[in-house]
């Protein structure tokens, strides 16, 4: 991965031009925008149809699509379409927030390891080696099973919906920061001995100043690309955790936990087993295509 060597204005315009010519990437971006619009229209649609998305109705489980319930109802008699929209809000939000939290952590650690080297660097490399090699899902499940009250949180918080959301965000961030950290470390190593960095230091610039003003902006390219690809991976992590019952906990819907009852749905209402997963699939593949397009647009050699 190269570190950009040219000025912002023209480089970004050039990259944008290249990206716009990439039809797959542009189509993916359009799909993602549509998906965001789709999940955000949950509130208005619920108001329009006058449906409470959380109201269960055990008399109308697995109803087929009707004029009122466009995609029918789920295993608790709730409107499937609205659940899909609200669940999408959760899944996309987890994807974004966990990427940002994990990305920030990775950037910070990568910068420190790359710039100062020595023990911090050696420790980082050992840890990332470990994370790359380890089976992450069992680790995620153990982390998800951790009892928050044993860590000093109040029982009230530990069982709240917010804790459920942040728990997923935090454990995915803990497991997923290593990729970004490695990239940022590599970029920092390449940049730290450049003359413009030395010259800022010779003028008395502190390490924090040099990192924030010179190294981070020049390492933006790999961070953006890695960040995009991370969103897809995080959404997959969230969905599988929630599916297994260790992620977002009902009644809050997420695309993953809507499939909790999948084995039952397969025989009674196969369509319900398809929708949430299909949306995850479409989201992640669009994110991955967009990330790939960004990589090509940013790094013409690739």
């Amino acid at each position, binding site marked *: 991965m190269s570190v950009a060597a040219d000025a912002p204005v023209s480089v970004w315009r050039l990259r944008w031009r290249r990206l716009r010519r990439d039809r797959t990437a542009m189509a993916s971006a359009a799909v993602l925008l549509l998906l965001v619009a789709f999940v955000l229209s949950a509130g208005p649609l619920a108001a329009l149809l006058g449906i409470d998305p959380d109201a269960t109705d055990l008399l109308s489980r697995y109803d087929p699509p009707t004029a009122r319930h466009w995609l029918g109802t789920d295993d608790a008699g709730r409107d499937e379409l609205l659940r899909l929209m609200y669940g999408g809000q959760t899944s996309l939000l987890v994807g974004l927030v966990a990427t940002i939290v994990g990305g920030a952590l990775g950037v910070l650690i990568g910068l420190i390891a790359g710039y100062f080297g020595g023990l911090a660097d050696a420790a980082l490399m050992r840890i990332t080696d470990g994370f790359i090699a380890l089976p992450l899902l*069992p680790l995620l499940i*153990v982390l998800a099973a951790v*009892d928050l009250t044993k860590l000093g949180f109040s029982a009230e918080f530990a069982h709240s919906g917010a804790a459920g959301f942040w728990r997923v965000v935090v454990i995915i961030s803990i497991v997923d920061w290593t990729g970004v950290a490695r990239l940022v470390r590599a970029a920092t190593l390449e940049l730290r001995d450049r003359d413009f960095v030395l010259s800022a230091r010779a003028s008395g610039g502190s390490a924090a100043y040099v990192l924030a003003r010179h190294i981070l902006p020049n390492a933006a390219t790999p961070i953006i690309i890695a960040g995009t690809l991370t969103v897809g991976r995080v959404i997959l992590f969230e969905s599988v955790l929630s599916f297994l019952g260790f992620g977002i906990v009902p009644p809050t819907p997420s695309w993953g936990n809507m499939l909790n009852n999948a084995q039952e749905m*397969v025989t009674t209402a196969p369509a319900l087993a398809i929708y949430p997963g299909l949306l995850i699939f479409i989201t992640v593949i669009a994110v991955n295509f967009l990330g790939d397009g960004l990589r090509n647009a940013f790094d013409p050699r690739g």
Partner: protein
Amino acid sequence: MAGFILRRIVQTACVLLVMSFVIYGLIGLMPGDPLDAMLASVPNVTPDVIEHLKQIYGLDQPLLLRYWHWLLAALSGDLGYSRTHSQPVLVVLLPALLQSCKLMLASFCVSVVLSVTLGVLAARRPGGRLDAAISLFAFAGLSVPVFWLALVLILLFAVQLHWLPASGMSSLGGGGPGDQLRHLALPVATLALVTAGGFTRYVRAAMIETMRMDFIRTARAKGAGEARIVLRHALRNALIPVVTVMALSFGTLFSGALVTETMFAQYGMGKMIYDAILGNDYNLALAGLLFATLITLLSNLGADLAYARLDPRITLQ
């Protein structure tokens, strides 16, 4: 070379040791403690009794000390007793390990064959139609949620077409090797398709790069046939880095196996760890996670050594 192997083995042992401590600590943070489970069936226990039991089981000692005792026992082969199975951990673990190895090895082989074939085909004309189609397949493999792919395959091949069984390891009352194979078909297909996505991209990239190299042009200039060039000259060189990447993805394969086993009700390591965590079966979860780590580390070690053997340019210090 001997020094390199020795160093890698020591390194692997160190990582395993650190991981065992981390996992031990994490397991201790799971809800409840071993006593809760034990006392659930015994009403009217006084706090005194609980304190006494804690002392007997060493639960009042600091974490590091408890870990040390556990480590000594584990090193002498005693991994404790599984609460949910009422059997020694190893008795539960070993058959599950065998089952997982079957699933993972089969999936690994299928996905390697699939990805090498597709990768080589895609690399023949980068940017062409076939390349685009294969690329779509690879991205799909990378992007599909494993549990959902399993669902779709079950819907299609078990519920709709009735070709294959939807779950279990064999039909009721046993069944021959053929029956077991039929039960393994869908899980292997699921895991292989997911794994092949990433592999295909690696093979394709490595092939494209290799086909640009000078020695390929030399082979062409000598008049070697295209098939011979691709298979004998290019593939051989392209596979060296790919093999490493594949072996390093063992951890991912294991994560996939966990989901696949859960979906298809196959009692392998993944399903075992999942059930153990759900059922607060500390000893079993701990041993399962450690074995999973061990297998992954060993496969990485194998990859390193294979890489060193395959590529004569690598000189080891």
